[in-house]
């Protein structure tokens, strides 16, 4: 298997809901007018608490300075696992499940904090730039490490760190953060970039004006209904995560609904903001899922983490995770 270290230098930022209007200009430019910026990596995720922005340095210039914006101090690099097409079986689990044991667990064992972003197309593992030597050391045994430089993929050289690391302690990883599962179901989808202009106003409405609309809905529906929407435009590919109700607002045939048309339930991790330093959170969730061979998407935000699992598996997932946490 190959691990590609992408060339984007990424910033992770949080925009308070109250401050969103001062950022909309920049965000619309990044999301819909990609040709006007040199940004190649842009992701926006709305949670009830805030907007989480992951953007490369070129795109970061489009955002204003404001007290409503808090930026994680580190620069992040995105890793991407490319498996060779040798295995012809089409029933591979997708999402973090596939890489749980090969990437996420070893990194957790070496106390490397990761930030996950699953999209329709692939999964990005974000690591701090300063952790890169350690990451490469950890993963070099399992992967062919390749680095993308100016769009060309070249072999990455080990940065010469060979010793001085603590031998990883292989301890069981109990789930330490509270979990919750909102009631609404989600779609992970995409659309043709050519059709983006035709649904741009709808997307803007969903992104920035959902707050007012949601208020009455939230009161009438059950309180576990969660506001969650994710848009990403990475290297020309669009990925969308939205709940089932929102998908109804799109015209037919615009969204890429797969043949199997799966819907996903969310598992929300964390009772209070998780911060960026704690390691092993993703591993805690993904390992039991991998053991049970349940596909999952995983989206980290500034404050909390979110895992998406197939709706028909939600009970077994909750069951599996509960077991982990009670085993503590």
């Amino acid at each position: 298997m190959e691990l590609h270290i992408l060339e984007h230098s990424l910033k992770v930022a949080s925009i308070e809901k109250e401050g969103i209007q001062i950022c909309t200009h920049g965000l619309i430019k990044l999301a819909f007018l990609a040709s006007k910026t040199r940004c190649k990596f842009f992701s926006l995720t709305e949670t009830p608490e805030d907007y989480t922005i992951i953007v490369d340095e070129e795109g970061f210039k489009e955002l204003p300075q404001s007290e409503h914006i808090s930026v994680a101090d580190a620069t992040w690099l995105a890793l991407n696992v490319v498996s060779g097409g040798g295995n012809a079986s089409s029933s591979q689990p997708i999402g973090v499940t596939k890489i749980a044991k090969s990437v996420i667990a070893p990194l957790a064992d070496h106390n490397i904090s990761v930030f996950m972003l699953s999209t329709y197309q692939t999964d990005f593992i974000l690591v701090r730039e300063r952790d890169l030597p350690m990451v490469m050391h950890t993963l070099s045994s399992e992967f062919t490490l390749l680095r993308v430089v100016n769009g060309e993929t070249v072999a990455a050289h080990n940065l010469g760190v060979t010793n001085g690391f603590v031998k990883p302690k292989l301890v069981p990883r109990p789930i330490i953060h509270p979990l919750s599962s909102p009631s609404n179901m989600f779609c992970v989808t995409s659309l043709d970039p050519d059709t983006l202009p035709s649904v741009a106003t709808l997307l803007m409405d969903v992104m920035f004006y959902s707050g007012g609309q949601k208020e009455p809905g939230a009161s009438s529906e059950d309180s576990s209904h969660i506001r969650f929407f994710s848009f990403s435009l990475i290297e020309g590919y669009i990925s969308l995560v939205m709940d089932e109700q929102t998908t109804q607002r799109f015209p037919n045939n615009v969204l890429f609904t797969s043949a199997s048309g799966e819907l996903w339930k969310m598992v929300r991790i964390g009772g209070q903001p998780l911060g960026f330093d704690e390691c092993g959170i993703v591993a805690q969730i993904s390992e039991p899922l991998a053991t049970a061979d349940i596909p999952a998407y995983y989206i980290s935000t500034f404050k909390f983490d979110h895992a998406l699992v197939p709706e028909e598996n939600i009970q077994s997932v909750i069951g599996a995770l509960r077991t982990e946490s009670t085993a503590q």
Partner: protein
Amino acid sequence: MSGSKPDILWSPHHPDRYVICDSELGLYRIGPVGSAETKPGTLPLSEETAATLLAINSDTPYMKCVAWYPKHEPECLLAVGQANGRVVLTSLGQSHNSTCKELVGKEFVPKHARQCNTLAWNPVDSNLLAAGLDKHRADFSVLIWDISSKFTPETSVAAEKIRLSSVDLDSSTVVTKPLYELGQNDACLSLCWLLRDPKLLLAGMHRNLAIFDLRNTSQKTFVNTKAIQGVTVDPHFHDRVASFFEGQVAIWDLRKFEKPVLTLTEQPKPLTKVAWCPTRTGLLATLTRDSNIIRLYDMQHTPTPIGDETEPTIIERSVQPCESQIGSFAWHPSSQNRMVVVSAANRVMTDFTVFERISLAWSSTTSLMWACGRHLYDCVEDSAEGIESMIEKDIATKMRQRAQSRYGHDTVQVWRNHLLAGGNDVQLKSLWFDLYYMKQCAEDMELKLQGNKQSVVYSGIKNIVKTSSGTTESRRCWAGSDRPTDVPRYHSEERCLALRLCGWISRGPDIDVETFLRSLEQEQEWERAAAVSLFNLDIRRAIQILNKGATAEKGDLNLNVVAMALSGYTDEKSSLWREMCSSLRLQLKNPYLCIMFAFLTSEPGAYDGVLYESSVAVRDRVAFACMFLSDAQLPRYIDKLTNEMKEAGNLEGILLTGLTKDGVDLMESYVDRTGDVQTASFCMLKGSPGDVLKDPRVQCWIENYRNLLDAWRFWHKRAEFDIHRGKLDPSSKPLAQVFVSCNFCGKSISYSCSAMPHQGRGFSQYGVSGSPTKSKVTSCPGCRKPLPRCALCLMNMGTPVSNCPGTGKSDEKVGLTRENKLAQFNNWFTWCHNCRHGGHAGHMLSWFRDHTECPVSACTCKCMQLDTTGNLVPSDSS
């Protein structure tokens, strides 16, 4: 298909139908513009053709790509790839016949939705439809659907299927299980089936070109490259594939797939379409974004004798089918070089035929050939005998014939050369007689004076009469009568020489034209003879000649009448005879008869009627002038005539100019007029080797004539010419350029024979020596070590004598033995300049008649192929 560019597809089976797809599919029929009554829906495509919209299909939104079913039936079945990855079969303008009905509306849905980039029908197994999709996680990006497969719900995926069928109205038309899944974890941007084997699929993946084999789907051949868009196989050369990346087209050879065989010059804007012409080999059309031109690359492999692999020659050119920016184009499948172009906006269509380049070639032997498209025209000089007399042959044909008859090589009877040239060209006849007389005079002078008179002879009458001095004037009587004439006649040494050069008088002190008259009578030139006789003041002789002419076989009886008129000559100024003759003489057809009366009726010193009668030979007029014009008149007349001749390029003028710079000027205008470098070369070689031969024009003619002989493969003639030239112009002899040096002592084996001139003489070819003290020809004359062996007969090489510089004179002296001395060509040394193997020329020649490689074992040098002319044979006999 918002914001997408339009595309065009020609029907694979109806040469008059095509489909345009942008946001919808439109089927058009193309026809002659005037054939049907111009219906309102007809769109003009060109001056001759117009299109009619037959049907529109807007059932399939978000179209990304379209492919036309390749088989006859069902005839208008299209596969449409959509933005969400679904492939839908649809049809246009079809009555719902049974074969089509089953298929139309069928959908092929990938497991995960993503854009469908490309579609390709298998050209042989037409049930197979390959679809290339964007990347989606670890999913496959190349799906091959079987369009005949039925929907079969699988129990394992039943749960999802239920939800799906609620969306799709008719689940029986949806297929979700592809026949083959290829290209896992990758994106596919372009596809094409390989024509050399219908089980092979070439795919432009994310960063590589891959060939998938359906018989073994776990294996693929791939090459990493960025040029992965628009893969397309050359329909005429199934191993040749084109693909592109941004502005650059790469051409691949599937037999050598590691890297592109060539890349075409990069365009500043990204390419949008690349297509091989289906009706013409090696023609590739490319289109870039926002452009109104189509760039064509003509790739032709031209076989050359050197090497096996040569880069194809690429001729790049652009065509502009219409004013507006081009959205897309499509070659017509059968009509030669024809395409339909659709504009980027407003769906404006143009029917356009790329005009073929015309290539033209002259052969060295007058035939002309030109090619345009599939037509080859050969234009040969008409050699029919009947026409020959009417139309003059091309100068190249003439020169070829003359070269074969050894024209120019008769150095003794120089005048005979005009007979070798065919004998029917007046100017050539005059030229060669001039040269003959000059040669005669020069030889004569040489014997007599031993001075530098030779140069005077060849400097032409113009220069000779200029130096004239001591002219005496005499009034002679009419021959055979005592009546003195009032015509003054001038004499001088120079004038005498001029008359000799004109051929009127021969050598000797006596000025007698009798010999000349006799030779004219022999050639039955009665009128001319009579005129010459008259000018020599011998009326009686003139009358006698005319009588002779009238009684001769085929003689003209009118000559008697002329003789009668002549006999009535009277010098009475106001006589009736004089009056009538001066007016009626103009009606005489023969110029010589005419000037006879002009002479008799004109005042002394005013002979314009004679001097400016242009149909009279220059030599006769000049001779006349030398006799009857005064020192003041003569040079003026000669100068005038010379300029006239130079301007016209008339070779008769060589008599006046001689072989001087003036002569070269004259020859220049002759060559400009006729192209006859042959005559020019031979003529100028006769001149003094001084200034004339150094004239760049002369050198140019000579070189061109040599090249011409080479081009005709008249190598023996060329060699003969070089020998001839070397004799007349020793400075033209090339120095020895190649020396054979001994492997042991390093001395030239030919050089050393000048040091020991007697060695080897009289030996047989392989040097069987009777005396051990004498060296053999097969050993180095310097160190006596043996010379190399012939690679074939394994004998030591060596030829009895090698001509070497500095011994030229001695060669002449031993001319008798030369025949024996010069070795046969078959025994000459010859060797390959590349591998340095060699042997006797004869052996080598016969070896390479049957072999291509060097005769030395383990040497793979293709010696003979390195010699581009080695396989040609001379077309003249030696």
